C-alpha cells in the first residue's frame, strides 16, 4: 500500500506547491492526468470511482469531506474487510479541492468567504472574475440554469471548457472512461443527492436505478445522526441547470453519477460551524460508501480477485 499512501501525498503536495496565492497562475492541471489512484495493485483489470470536492469555493465542508473520506479508507483497509475488498477491485481517484484558485481566494479574508466561481479574469469587456465551473462542462452547455452575464455566479464561461479545471476533469474522465463506474461530486448546502440530468426534459436511461441507489444512500446517511437528505434530479428538487460535471460524467457513459449537497438546509448555509464538520462528514461517508458498495457488488460478483499489496 506504500504506493497508495504516496499517491495521497502527491495530490496534497501538488496542491501545496501550487498554493502560491497568485490567481489564475498557469497551474499545471495536467497533473490530474498523472494522478495516482488509491487502491491495491492488481493483475486483473480494475474499475474506478472518482470523487471531487470543492468545485465551488465557498462550500468548505466539501473539501473537508474528501479529506475525511480518504482518511477513513486509508485508516480502515487493513481491518475492515469491506474496504479491503473495495481496494482489491476498485481504484479511488479523489481530488479534495478541484477549484484551487477559488478556494484559496475564499480563505483570503472575510469579504471573499462567499466566492463560488473560478478566478479566471473576465474576457472581452467583462470586468468581473470567474466562471461557474459547474456550468462549464460540455453537457448541454448553455441550455438552462445559466447566465451569460460574466458577473453572475452562474456564468457558464465564454465557451464550454474554457476553464482549465473543467478541461482537466474532462480529459481525465475521457481517458479513463471504461474504468470509471461511479462519479461523485461533493457540494454544499441543501442535504440533497442529485441524479442526472439537470435539464428538465432529459432523463437518464437508468433513472429508476439511480433513484433507488440514491434513496438507499439517503437512508444510510439518516442512520448515522438522523439527518434527512432528499433525492431526485436537480430540476425536480433544486433547479434546472446545464454544463454540470455530474451530467458530463453520465453523458460519457459513467453509469452512476451523483451530486452530494452536504449540510445544512440554510440555517448556516455555506458557513457551517466547526462542531458540525465531523458529523456532516461521518454521515456523508456512509452515503458515499452505500453507493460505492452497490456499484462494486454489481460489477464484481465474486470476491476472488487476484491482488497483491
Amino acid at each position, binding site marked *: 500500500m506504500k504506493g497508495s499512501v504516496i499517491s495521497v501525498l502527491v495530490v496534497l503536495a501538488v496542491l501545496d506547491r501550487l498554493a502560491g496565492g497568485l490567481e489564475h497562475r498557469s497551474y499545471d492541471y495536467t497533473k490530474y492526468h498523472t494522478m495516482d489512484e488509491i487502491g491495491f495493485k492488481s493483475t486483473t483489470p480494475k474499475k474506478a470511482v472518482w470523487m471531487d470536492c470543492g468545485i465551488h469555493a465557498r462550500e468548505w465542508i466539501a473539501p473537508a469531506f474528501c479529506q475525511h473520506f480518504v482518511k477513513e479508507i486509508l485508516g480502515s483497509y487493513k481491518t475492515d474487510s469491506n474496504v479491503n475488498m473495495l481496494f482489491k477491485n476498485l481504484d479511488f481517484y479523489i481530488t479534495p479541492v478541484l477549484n484551487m484558485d477559488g478556494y484559496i481566494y475564499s480563505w483570503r479574508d472575510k469579504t471573499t468567504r462567499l466566492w463560488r466561481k473560478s478566478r479566471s479574469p473576465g474576457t472581452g469587456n467583462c*470586468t468581473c472574475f470567474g466562471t461557474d465551473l459547474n456550468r462549464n462542462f460540455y453537457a448541454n452547455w448553455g441550455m438552462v440554469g445559466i447566465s451569460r452575464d460574466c458577473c453572475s455566479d452562474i456564468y457558464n464561461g465564454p465557451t464550454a471548457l474554457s476553464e482549465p479545471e473543467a478541461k482537466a476533469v474532462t480529459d481525465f474522465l475521457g481517458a479513463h472512461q471504461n474504468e470509471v463506474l461511479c462519479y461523485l461530486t461533493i457540494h454544499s448546502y441543501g442535504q440533497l443527492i442529485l441524479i442526472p440530468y439537470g435539464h428538465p426534459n432529459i432523463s437518464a436511461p437508468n433513472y429508476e436505478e439511480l433513484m433507488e441507489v440514491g434513496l438507499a444512500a439517503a437512508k444510510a446517511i439518516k442512520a448515522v445522526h438522523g439527518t434527512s437528505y432528499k433525492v431526485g434530479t436537480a430540476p425536480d*428538487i433544486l433547479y434546472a441547470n446545464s454544463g454540470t460535471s455530474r451530467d458530463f460524467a453520465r453523458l460519457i457513459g459513467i453509469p452512476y453519477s451523483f451530486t452530494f449537497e452536504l449540510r445544512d438546509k440554510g440555517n448556516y448555509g455555506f458557513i457551517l460551524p466547526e462542531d458540525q464538520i465531523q458529523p456532516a462528514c461521518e454521515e456523508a461517508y456512509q452515503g458515499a460508501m452505500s453507493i460505492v458498495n452497490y456499484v462494486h457488488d454489481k460489477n464484481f460478483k465474486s470476491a476472488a480477485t487476484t491482488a497483491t499489496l
Partner: protein
Amino acid sequence: MASTGDLEPTHYPARRAAQVALHYLNTHHGSPFRVFGLQQVHKASAEDVAAGGRKYKLDFSVTDWGSGSAGPALRCSADVLFPRTERHSAPEVQLHCEALHQINSTAQEEDAFYQKYISPDSTVSARDIPDSFGNMSEEMQPFWRLARVAASFIMLRESSENTEFNMAKVASVTQQESSEEQLMLEFVVLLHDFPSQEIVQWKLLASWSPDRGVRVLQTEWQPRCPHATKPPN
C-alpha cells in the same frame, strides 16, 4: 413548467412556497431567541388564480432552530399567493400553526436580553457573524437571530416562485440610539438565493422589544461590486 393541482412535497416548487411561509412566520413570531426553520412539507398543491397569480396551499412542519433537533415540530398550514404583475410585488401569505403559544416560552431570556441592551450606554457593534469558520460568540447569537428575523422581512418581500432565499451571514450589526423603548439595530445582511446562486447584500434598520417584536423600518439594497448600480428586481 408549472403544474396545477397536487405538488410533489419534496420538489422545489412546494419547498420554495413553504420557505416564503417560513419567512412570514418569522416576521411575526421570530425573536432574539426564536427562529423557525422548515422541517418538511407534507402536502402541497397549487392553482392559477383569476386575478393573475398562483396560489399554493401547503401543509408543513417547522422547528425552532434554537432547540435544535431536540425541539418539537409544529404543524402549519399556509396559503401563499405569488402575484403575476409587471413589476415584482411581494407574495401574500395566510398562515396558521398549531400550538404556537404552547412552545417553550423564551420570555425570560428576552427580558434579560432587552434589559441588558436597552441601557443608554449600550453601543453594540460587531462584524462578520458568524466568522468564516462558522464561529459565533454566545453574546452574538441573539443578534444573529434578530438579523435573521429582520432579514425575513426582506426575503419575504423579494421572494417569487423563482427565488429561494436564506441568510448567508450578518456582515455587521451596529446599535443605534434606542427609540420609544425599542432596541434599534442597523444590520447589513448577506442573503443567498439558490437559483441564481447570488449573494445579495442589504442594509436595514430594525427595532425590537419583547412587547412589540421585530419591526423593520428601513431597507436599502447594497451593491456588491463597486461598478454595479442596479438592484436585482
